[in-house]
């Protein structure tokens, strides 16, 4: 039975002994984040901070550090448990997710008095962002942030609106700046429709909406559908929604916190600098659209999950990198197959998940990889991803050893590295390879200067070096012996090939 709320997800983590509850007073001012980053780096338990210094007495909100972060060897593990999907092997998890995404389930609206997120309702001046212990995450950040939040926004093509992840920098009790990067659907709608018409865009920023909703808020879905339907598909049951107090949007009834408001036209507030998903502090400070708060509803003693951005690069995992591996990968695989490409798996590179992806695919005709890369770069609004690496269709992109070997041995610098033009493509200003001058004022959330995109053909075009010795039975015997000697069975995953029996 799949979990249906953030609290059930915490129970799922606790059952797997993947949670630690810290009852000591912990400060929102760097301390909770430092502990979380250390847990992320060391692959340790996920911390729940029950007692946060300066906790507002009445609200008594609690923090949870990177709750969606999966184990470094199997980032998808907690999602697999939460959605009752296979944990091993990784490709089986991907196929399970793809199957669920094939069958969206429409949400159901429930009465307000049945919705946990309405346990406390504050509107107008009674609603204050400062009731909550938003963490100050890294030294040098521009402010305190809500980093694990799903923004619900109107969508004329979808009954249930558009659901996507945007961070918010808290400015005072009623205002926050939202990271809106043009090229993504909701920011596009704000910049090029609402703001041009001088209209505020009604939104609801939900915190703690649970794994299914937060996972689908990260993925690309067909126009005309709503992410919340796909969230229903993932959990195999309708997501229960409830109507907002101050606008026409519907939000997850089980959410920990719902911040209703409007994104104001022609108003900007500072956003950043911020220690971002690249693993670096990016600058300069940007001007971003303003969320004006109209109401806040929440559960009693709500949890405020947060992500320590920048800790999901290199060996570390965090919620962002886990979303990419556990949700973005299966969704991208499905999307490419639906577009007619013969793709086995599309997987984010674990060391920097939003910049480079690995795709295991056939090359059915000359130019097939160019066509595939071109399709993705142009249709997915690729402001974050700069590179694709293509590997043989049977190579497991979840295995970084297999990918490093493919790049090192099979990619010919003369013929297998392909750039799409020279600095013709848009780029998010969060990057660190452009100078502040090149990024400019980032008026709609893209750099003033363009960048290049590239793909690498690391397919073998022939024989590949041996990966193992002996037949399947002999290898299994060997693994059994080694397991008896203390080598954990999980250490043999992920396998070099998608079919682990090869």
């Amino acid at each position, binding site marked *: 039975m799949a979990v249906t709320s953030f609290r059930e997800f915490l129970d799922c983590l606790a059952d797997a002994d993947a949670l630690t509850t810290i009852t000591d007073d912990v400060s929102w001012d760097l301390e909770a984040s430092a502990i979380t980053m250390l847990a992320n780096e060391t692959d340790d338990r996920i911390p729940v901070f029950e007692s946060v210094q300066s906790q507002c007495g009445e609200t008594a909100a609690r923090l949870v550090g990177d709750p969606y972060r999966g184990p470094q060897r199997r980032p998808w593990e907690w999602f697999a448990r939460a959605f009752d999907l296979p944990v091993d092997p990784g490709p089986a998890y991907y196929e399970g997710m793809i199957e669920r995404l094939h069958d969206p389930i429409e949400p159901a609206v429930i009465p307000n008095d049945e919705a946990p997120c309405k346990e406390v309702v504050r509107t107008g001046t009674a609603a204050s962002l400062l009731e909550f212990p938003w963490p100050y995450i890294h030294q040098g950040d521009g402010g305190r942030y809500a980093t694990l939040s799903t923004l619900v926004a109107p969508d004329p093509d979808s009954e249930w609106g558009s659901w996507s992840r945007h961070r918010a920098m808290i400015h005072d009790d009623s205002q926050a700046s939202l990271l809106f990067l043009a090229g993504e659907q909701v920011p596009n709608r704000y910049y090029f429709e609402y703001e041009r018409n001088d209209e505020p865009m009604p939104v609801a920023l939900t915190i703690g909406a649970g794994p299914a909703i937060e996972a689908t808020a990260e993925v690309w879905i067909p126009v005309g559908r709503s992410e919340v339907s796909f969230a229903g598909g993932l959990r195999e049951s309708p997501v229960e929604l409830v109507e907002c107090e101050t606008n026409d949007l519907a939000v997850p009834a089980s959410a920990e916190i719902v911040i209703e408001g409007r994104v104001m036209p022609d108003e900007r507030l500072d956003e950043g600098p911020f220690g971002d998903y690249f693993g*670096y502090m990016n600058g300069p400070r940007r001007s971003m659209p303003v969320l004006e708060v109209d109401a806040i509803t929440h559960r009693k003693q709500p949890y405020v999950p947060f992500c320590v951005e920048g800790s999901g690069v290199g060996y570390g995992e965090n919620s962002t990198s886990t979303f990419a591996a556990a949700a973005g990968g299966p969704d991208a695989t499905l999307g490419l197959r639906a577009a007619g490409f013969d793709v086995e798996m599309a997987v984010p590179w674990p060391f920097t998940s939003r910049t480079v992806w690995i795709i295991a695919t056939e090359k059915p005709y000359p130019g097939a990889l160019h066509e595939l890369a071109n399709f993705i770069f142009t249709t997915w609004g690729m402001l974050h991803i700069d590179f694709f690496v293509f590997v043989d269709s049977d190579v497991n992109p979840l295995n970084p050893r297999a990918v490093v070997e493919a790049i090192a*041995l099979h990619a010919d610098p003369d013929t297998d590295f392909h750039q799409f033009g020279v600095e013709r493509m848009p780029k998010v200003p969060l990057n660190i390879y452009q100078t502040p001058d090149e990024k400019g004022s980032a008026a709609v959330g893209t750099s003033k200067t363009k960048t290049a995109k590239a793909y690498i053909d690391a397919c073998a075009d022939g024989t590949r070096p041996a990966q193992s010795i002996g037949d399947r039975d002999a290898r299994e015997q060997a693994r059994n012996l080694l397991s008896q*000697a203390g080598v954990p069975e999980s250490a043999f995953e992920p396998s070099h090939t998608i079919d682990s029996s090869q």
Partner: protein
Amino acid sequence: MTAFRTHLEFLRKTGDCCSLERPDSPSPQVIASEALRADGPAVRLGTADGRIDLVSGVYGGVDQLRRQTRYPWTRLGIGLGVDRDPAYVDVLEKIATLGKRVDERDVTYVERAATTTDRTVRDLGFPTPPGETWPHVTLGVLSVGTDEGTYWTPLHGTVIDSNTIRARIPETITDRFERGATVSIALGVPAEALAATQFLTITDRLSTPIEDRRVGSTVPVIPTTGGVVPSSSEVVLEAEIADKQPDTRSEKRAFWEHLLEGTTLTLEVSSVFTRDDAVVPFTPLGVPLTDDLQLVSLALAARLYDRVNSYWGVSPVEWLLLPAAGRLGICVVSTEVLYAGFEWQLSNFLFSFADCFDTVVLVDEHASPRDLGQVLGDIWVKAHPARDWLFSGSDAPVARLPTYSREGTGARLYIDATWDPRWDEAYIAPRVSLAESYPPTLRAAIRGSWAEFGFDSELDELL
């Protein structure tokens, strides 16, 4: 000097060597290969039937594609006596030092630990890969004595009958051998002897007697009919060269055979010496992370590191790594960029002194060799996709190890993931990390409460 069995004992005590009873099936090579796949410990396979013990994964064992507390150089560094937790560069410097010439010979002779036995070579029970007929002998040293001194080379042998070994050795050493000459094979030698032999082989320095190299005064030796061999060797085989068969090639090659030409000798073993409870290292061939690959990787890195820091009058390179996961098809170098354009010079210098890779990745001098994960991120986020991925023309020699099919010439690539030295300081984005994102007092307080918070992990590497 650390004897091989002492080296193993260190690994056992630190939980990095496990023991199994040697099964009839699967073959030791299968077990070793699966242990490597799992980034597992060294694996000792013991018997009580008179065969020698075998151990795999002694010199490398792991990659760096997930966070580990041990590194590809840890086990070798322990064997070289560098440290229990050896720094990468210390291991490289130790290897290079063992290969340096000495002004004066200072050889130490110590009684041979192995004693004579009436067992044949086949009785010793070297491992046979599945699908093959003949047992393999790997990770040993072949020795030949001359009037000038002793020469050591790596060997890859197959035991073709009771006392006959067909041995692959580097071709450059063959002028030291004559038909009918005697040689010795030493197995289970100190790590210094094995690492130095690999280093001298890939640097084409086999023409100098071992006594004139630092390793000759570091490793105590004993004379045999084939020159001096390490006294503490677990197994010593004395043999006569029965035939030179330069046209014969083994199907599987030890990794050094990918870098230089080899030749084949047929050896008739006349004497077998073993220590009590002898244990010898072995490696499967051709699969990822094998010991022969790791040894060549470290030896080549030691050579290149030494060369690049001996060229410009200063030592700009912090470290240089040839990840075994890439089977030496890619080279990572951490360097100070002395001036604009230095990155081009350095990359092409490396292409000049090594022909095995076609790609060089440059990272800042602050990067740690222990954190390859950061490198594997920085390649993509610090290097501008249009400006910092730099390709040569297609008229360069084709690199030796990549497997793409090309004849004649090809291109080379370097990826500059360093900060541009022309950038203003304000343009340099600080890293997000524990050290840079949180004050020391806070980190210290967290360290003090870590276990109390309910966490299990060790923090030595991170705080």
